[in-house]
């Protein structure tokens, strides 16, 4: 909704007339803070109603003003200096002015100090702001990734293949999301031992009894996080397997280093 639609929707009038729910009030406040023209419209509405009230004014009986004043607590007005002025001699003023000047200089230093403090605080709060903006960006990216991954998993025509750990790693488990029409293969590893630094896991498609390279992959520190890795496209396969190979992968899998296997 653009601002003029928002203004003509009538919500601002309802806001001033206190007709909104807490949530709606908060929304209007936010809109007013971010859109000066909405803030201006709110003030205009308030002033209109104020003027309307003034037009509907009714003069109360004149004695009420003093009657009310008698019920109020007043602070003393600031003492007039006129009485003092007559008594003092010019020399007094010279000294007073000098003292005032000194005090003023001192006060200026104090103010300057305060200003520096405030500036520092401003910088700190700016740093905080940047930090939170960064955190927000990270969370947003994670959320976007998760959404993307969910969309990939939920794709029509997907085949899910569960790969289970063999003797080498009985607890290992991974899933393949394989779209047979687009040939795309995505891998999600739930549990697998961390490989030594000089080794990498490699995925294979078993096509008519022969292993076809489906790409190598790395593990993130926390493999429990939902990570989908796009592998090489595969047109046809009866099974998928994962082996542990030297860094960069091999052309032919090392069969005794097979870690996971799953039939399509």
């Amino acid at each position, binding site marked *: 909704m653009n601002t003029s639609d928002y203004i003509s929707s009538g919500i601002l*009038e309802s806001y001033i007339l206190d007709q909104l729910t807490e949530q709606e009030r908060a929304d209007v406040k936010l809109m007013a803070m971010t859109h000066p023209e909405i803030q201006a419209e709110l003030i*205009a509405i308030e002033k209109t*109603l104020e003027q*309307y*009230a003034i037009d509907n004014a009714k003069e109360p009986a004149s004695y009420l003003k003093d009657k*009310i004043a008698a019920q*109020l607590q007043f602070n003393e*007005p600031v003492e007039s200096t006129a009485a003092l002025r007559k008594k003092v001699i010019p020399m007094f003023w010279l000294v007073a002015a000098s003292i005032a000047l000194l005090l003023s200089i001192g006060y200026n230093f104090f103010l300057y100090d305060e200003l520096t403090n405030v500036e520092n605080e401003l910088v700190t709060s700016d740093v905080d702001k940047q930090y939170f903006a960064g955190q927000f960006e990270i969370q947003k990216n994670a959320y976007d990734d998760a959404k993307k991954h969910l969309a990939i998993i939920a794709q029509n025509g997907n085949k899910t293949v569960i790969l289970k750990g063999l003797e080498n790693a009985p607890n290992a488990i991974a899933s393949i999301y394989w779209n047979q029409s687009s040939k795309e293969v995505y891998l999600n590893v739930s549990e697998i031992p961390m490989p030594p630094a000089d080794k990498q896991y490699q995925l294979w498609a078993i096509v008519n009894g022969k292993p076809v390279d489906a790409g190598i992959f790395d593990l993130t520190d926390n493999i429990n996080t939902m990570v989908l890795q796009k592998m090489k496209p595969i047109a046809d396969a009866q099974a998928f397997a994962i082996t542990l190979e030297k860094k960069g992968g091999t052309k032919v899998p090392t069969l005794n280093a097979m870690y996971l296997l799953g039939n399509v």
Partner: protein
Amino acid sequence: MQKSTKNYTEEELVALLKSKNANSYSLLYDNYSAALFGVISKVVSAEEIAEDILQDVFVKIWKNIEHYDASKGRLFTWMLNIARNASIDYSRSKQSKMDGKLRDLEHSKYEVNKQSSAQSNTDFIGVKEQVAKLKEDYRVLIDLLYFEGYTQEDAAKELNIPLGTVKTRVRAAIVKLRETLK
């Protein structure tokens, strides 16, 4: 009506009021007593009771002026809320049972308006009257919502018109007011 505030911005006036000296009270009273008394009188018709409420309202304003927060709205809106709530509290309290009956009678004038509204759709009434009629409908609606603190639902019931109509009329009414008050 706004007498001496011409020389003060609202911020200055608020700062003065917060100093709580006798001059600032005088300024406050001269500028706003009639408008606030007008609001109170819309809800409470008995003159002396309205006067009592006006006194309470000024005492409250005076005591609470420190809590007034300009970022939440204009000073007058804040004072009007105090006046309106005090009036509504009174009219709801037990001692106002009798007065309430008078109020019901008073409100029957809206009923009359509503009936005339049905007639005004005919060709017998000229455009000028229709405009006047519309203005009257608007005025009644704004009075209920703004002066008497009705919810839009209650106003719809009171005026016997759909809630949707109330909502669209509020915006139209204030736009119209803005034109006439300019």
